[in-house]
């Protein structure tokens, strides 16, 4: 059967002769190609759940990412990486380390809780040592 120019041909689709349906009634394809299709369908339905309909692709669109979604391809830099690069202690370590900026709070604490003064003096001393080292 020749294909004239301008026609659309289905590539790969089985060429099944179909009996013409009269008055719009449903018809059954009784040709060997048609029957083999029914056999194949029945085999699929008998197959386990996960093996059925494997020819149907999942409705996932695999295309390009829409332009309105920003794509950040920069490597994830965590605070500890940044601190390590700068030669500082990681935030978790620094949180427990004495900070010189605590001085005003320590002054208030020293005034309100005189019994804590020895401990506060030790913190101040550690601060001074840290300051001298850096």
């Amino acid at each position, binding site marked *: 059967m020749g294909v004239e120019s301008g026609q659309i041909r289905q590539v790969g689709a089985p060429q099944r002769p179909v009996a013409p349906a009269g008055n719009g009634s449903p018809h059954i394809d009784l040709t060997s190609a048609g029957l083999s299709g029914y056999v194949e369908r029945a085999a699929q339905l008998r197959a386990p759940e996960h093996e059925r309909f494997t020819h149907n692709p999942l409705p996932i669109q695999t295309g390009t990412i829409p332009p309105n979604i920003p794509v950040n391809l920069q490597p994830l830099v965590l605070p500890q990486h940044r601190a390590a690069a700068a030669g500082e202690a990681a935030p978790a370590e620094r949180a*427990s*380390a*004495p*900070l010189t*900026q*605590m*001085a*005003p*709070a320590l*002054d*208030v*604490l020293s*005034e*309100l*809780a*005189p019994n*804590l003064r020895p*401990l*506060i003096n*030790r*913190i101040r001393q*550690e601060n001074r040592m840290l300051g001298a080292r850096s």
Partner: protein
Amino acid sequence: MEENIEKSALEQLEDLLKAQWKKSGSASIIAARHSEFVIEPKVFIGNKLHPDILKMLTLNYLATAAVQDSGIGGNVEVTPDKLVIKNDAGKPMVAVRDKKIIQQYLSAQA
């Protein structure tokens, strides 16, 4: 397993203050089915004390200062609107504007 790492002075101070804060009854506890979570305040927020910790310490200080022979009452300057706690050099350290706390201090002194 016993923890052998000695805590720094700052960690010890924070532990003491947190223990005091829990004892003062301000701790909130979230009780789950098999666990309990105790919400602890951060003692230092930048260069300031946590407001809850500051309030607890101020109340303790005023309770002690209100006693005539405590020897620390001289650092408190009080007017009906404002109460100021100064250090030994006379520098204001804490200002209280809570009328209830001021009234409590004044009535304890009387």
